[in-house]
C-alpha cells in the first residue's frame, strides 16, 4: 500500500503557511459550509459515521467523545492538544509549522460541532517557531472573518486563544493540560469527572489532538463514507505515522490504517545495508515492542493491541542489530521518571528507582535479582496512579527484557565481584 496524501498534501512541496495559498487549495470552504449549511449535530454525526478515532494516543472515537457533553451546561470549550512530546512523535510539530490554517480550520469545525464559542490550542513550549507561525496564521484568519464575532454573517461567534506550554511532557495528558491552561502546575486530575463534564474552569470541555481535528476538514469535504471505507475493523481512515530510528528515510508518512508494519518500514526506506531488524516500537515511548514475527501484521489499533502493544500516537521507532536494548530501556525509564509530575507515590518513587536500577545495568554493575526486581517494581507502579504516565515504563522494558534476556543478564556482576 502506498503513501497517501490527505493532511500531508503539498507539505514539503509548496508553502501553505499563508492564507492565500491555503485558500487556493480549497481552504476554509468546509468551515464556511459547516457554519452556513450544517447544524452542529450534523458535524457530530459525520464524525461519528466516519469512524474517526483520537490520533493523540488513546484512540477514543471522536464523535462519541463529543456526545458525552451534558446538554444544558454552558459555556463549553474545545481544546486542541498540541503538546506533542511522546518520544518518537513529530507529526503535530509538522502540521503546526507547515499547514497552520488546516489546524485552525479543523479546530473551528470541532468547536462548532460541540457548539463551543471559545477554543484553545495548547502548543508545546519548545515549538516556539510553530507558535509564531500559528499566531501569524490566526491573525490572518481573524482578519478574514473566519474567527471572531458573527462568522459568515451567521450569528455564530467563536474566539480562538493560543497558549504556550513551558516544558512538561505530562501536560499532554488532557487533565494536566487543563490545569496548565488554568495557570496551575501540570498535574493530572482524578477522573471522573471527565473533562466532558468538568473540564476547563469546571465546564464541559473536549480535548482533541491536532491531527484528529485536522482530519475533520477532509471528512467534511469528501464525506464520512470516504473515510470509513478505508482501514479495517474499527480502525478507519488515514493516519500520519512518524517513522524514525534505524531506517534510511525517517519522516512522517500518511497511510491508510491497515498498511502492514513491513510496508511502513519499506516506505521509510528500509533498514541500512547489512543490518537486521531486531524490534519495532509502534506507538511511541509508552508502547511495547513488536518483533519480526509481527512485520506482516496490519498497522491499526486492534492488530497492535492483539500483538501486545498499541498504536498510541503513531510514532514508530525501528531498531536494528546495533541497538543496546538495556540502554534503550534506561533511556525511556529515565524519561518517564524525569517527567513524572510527582503527585502519585508509585510513579514518582518507582520510576526513579527503575531508572536507577537500569542505570547500573547499563554500566555493567547490576546485582543478582535486578531483573526480577525491575519486574516487581513495575508491577507495583502499573494501574496505581491518577494518570498512565507511570504505567508507561513497563511495556517497552518488559517486551525487550523477555525478548533479549541475554542483553540484560550479561550486565549483572557475579556475587564475588560486588562492591563492598
Amino acid at each position: 500500500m502506498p503513501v497517501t496524501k490527505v493532511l500531508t498534501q503539498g507539505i514539503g512541496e509548496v508553502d501553505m503557511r499563508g492564507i492565500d495559498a491555503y485558500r487556493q487549495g480549497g481552504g476554509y470552504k468546509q468551515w464556511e459550509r459547516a457554519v452556513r449549511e450544517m447544524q452542529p449535530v450534523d458535524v457530530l454525526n459525520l464524525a461519528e459515521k466516519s469512524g474517526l478515532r483520537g490520533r493523540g494516543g488513546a484512540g477514543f472515537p471522536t464523535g462519541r467523545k463529543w456526545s458525552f457533553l451534558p446538554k444544558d451546561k454552558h459555556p463549553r470549550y474545545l481544546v486542541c492538544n498540541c503538546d506533542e512530546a511522546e518520544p518518537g512523535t513529530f507529526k503535530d510539530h509538522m502540521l503546526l509549522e507547515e499547514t497552520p490554517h488546516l489546524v485552525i480550520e479543523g479546530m473551528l469545525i470541532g468547536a462548532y460541532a460541540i457548539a463551543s464559542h471559545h477554543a484553545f490550542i495548547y502548543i508545546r513550549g519548545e515549538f516556539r517557531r510553530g507558535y509564531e507561525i500559528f499566531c501569524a496564521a490566526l491573525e490572518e484568519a481573524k482578519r478574514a472573518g473566519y474567527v471572531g464575532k458573527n462568522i459568515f454573517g451567521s450569528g455564530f461567534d467563536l474566539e480562538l486563544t493560543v497558549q504556550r506550554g513551558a516544558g512538561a511532557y505530562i501536560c499532554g495528558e488532557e487533565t494536566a493540560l487543563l490545569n496548565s491552561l488554568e495557570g496551575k502546575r501540570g498535574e493530572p486530575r482524578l477522573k471522573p469527572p471527565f473533562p466532558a463534564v468538568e473540564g476547563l474552569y469546571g465546564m464541559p470541555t473536549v480535548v482533541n489532538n491536532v491531527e484528529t481535528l485536522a482530519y475533520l476538514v477532509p471528512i467534511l469535504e469528501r464525506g464520512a463514507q470516504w473515510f470509513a471505507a478505508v482501514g479495517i475493523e474499527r480502525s478507519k481512515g488515514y493516519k500520519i505515522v512518524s517513522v524514525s530510528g534505524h531506517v534510511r528515510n525517517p519522516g512522517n508518512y500518511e497511510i491508510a490504517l491497515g498498511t502492514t508494519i513491513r510496508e511502513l518500514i519499506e516506505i521509510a526506506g528500509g533498514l541500512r545495508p547489512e543490518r537486521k531488524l531486531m524490534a519495532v516500537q509502534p506507538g511511541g515511548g509508552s508502547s511495547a515492542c513488536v518483533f519480526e514475527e509481527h512485520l506482516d501484521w496490519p498497522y491499526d489499533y486492534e492488530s497492535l493491541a492483539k500483538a501486545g502493544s498499541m498504536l498510541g500516537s503513531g510514532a514508530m521507532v525501528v531498531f536494528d542489530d546495533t541497538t543496546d536494548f538495556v540502554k534503550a530501556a534506561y533511556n525511556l525509564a529515565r524519561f518517564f521518571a524525569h517527567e513524572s509530575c510527582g503527585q502519585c507515590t508509585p510513579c514518582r518513587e518507582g520510576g526513579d528507582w527503575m531508572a536507577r536500577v537500569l542505570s547500573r545495568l547499563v554500566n555493567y554493575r547490576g546485582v543478582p535479582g535486578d531483573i526480577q526486581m525491575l519486574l516487581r517494581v513495575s508491577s507495583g507502579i502499573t494501574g496505581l496512579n491518577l494518570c498512565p504516565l507511570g504505567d508507561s515504563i513497563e511495556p517497552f522494558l518488559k517486551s525487550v527484557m523477555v525478548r533479549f534476556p541475554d542483553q540484560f543478564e550479561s550486565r549483572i556482576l557475579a556475587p564475588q565481584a560486588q562492591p563492598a
Partner: protein
Amino acid sequence: MNEREKNFPALLERLTPECQRIIAQYEQGRSALLPIMHLFQEHEGYVSAEAMNAAAEMLSLTPAEVEATVSFYTLLYRRPVGKYMLQVCRGLACSINGAEDIMAYFRERLGIGHVQTTDDGVFSYEEVECLAACDRASCMQVNLDFVYSLTPHAIDEMLASIRSGTYSTPPMAQIEAPGRTWAISQESEIAGGKRSSGAVGVPQPNNAGGVGDRSGIIMLDHIINHDVEFFTKTSERAVVDSRAVVEVAQEEGSHARH
C-alpha cells in the same frame, strides 16, 4: 540593589498593557500566568522574583502559588542563564542515532556539563527530552530554534559563530550574570548512584535507601515485602536520617571546594 532590580519598575510599567491584554483573553485571569512569565523571561532572560511577585499581584494570587506553578515548568528559568541556551535532545530516537557522542562532544567543547553555564555567561547547556524532530536526529534547540542532523563539524561552526556574534539566532536577554547552574539536576544524582530519591539514612535494619544502601535493594525489598514495618518506623528513621543528611552535606561540601 543591582541594575536589573533598579530597572524593574520601569519594565513592569512597560509590560503592564501587554499583560492586561493577555489576561483579557481568558474567562479566568490565572490562565495568563504562563504567558506572563514567558513575557518577563523574554525581557529579563529569566523569571525573576520581582516578575513572580508582579504576576501574583496582577492575578490576585499568592507569591507561593506563582512560584509553585513556575517551578513546575523546565522552560521557565528561575535563575539567570547564558545568552545561548543549548538544549540537546537525549530522546530514544536521537540516542540510537549518535546523540551520546554529540552530547559528549558538547561537554568537551564547552567544558561544562548538564544544566551548567560557562563562566563567561555565553552558553548554557542542557540535555533535554524528546524534541519531536526524530526524523532529523541528532537534533537540538538553540534558544528554542531547531538545529538538525548534528555533526561535530557543525557544532564547531555553531559555537564559533555564536562567539563571533554572527550566529543566525539572536542571544537571549541577559541583564544579570548567571551562576554555574540554574536548576537542580536530578539525573546526575541517579547516575552517580549517590543517594536514593527517598530518604537518606544509614544501613540495616531500619535504614533502607540510606547511604549504606547504594544499590537500593534494601529500600525496594522493604517497600515490597515489609511495607508495614517500614512505614511504622518513620519517626525513628527521621532521627537517624537527619544525622546522615548533615554528614552527606559535609562530605559534599568538601567535595565542592576541590
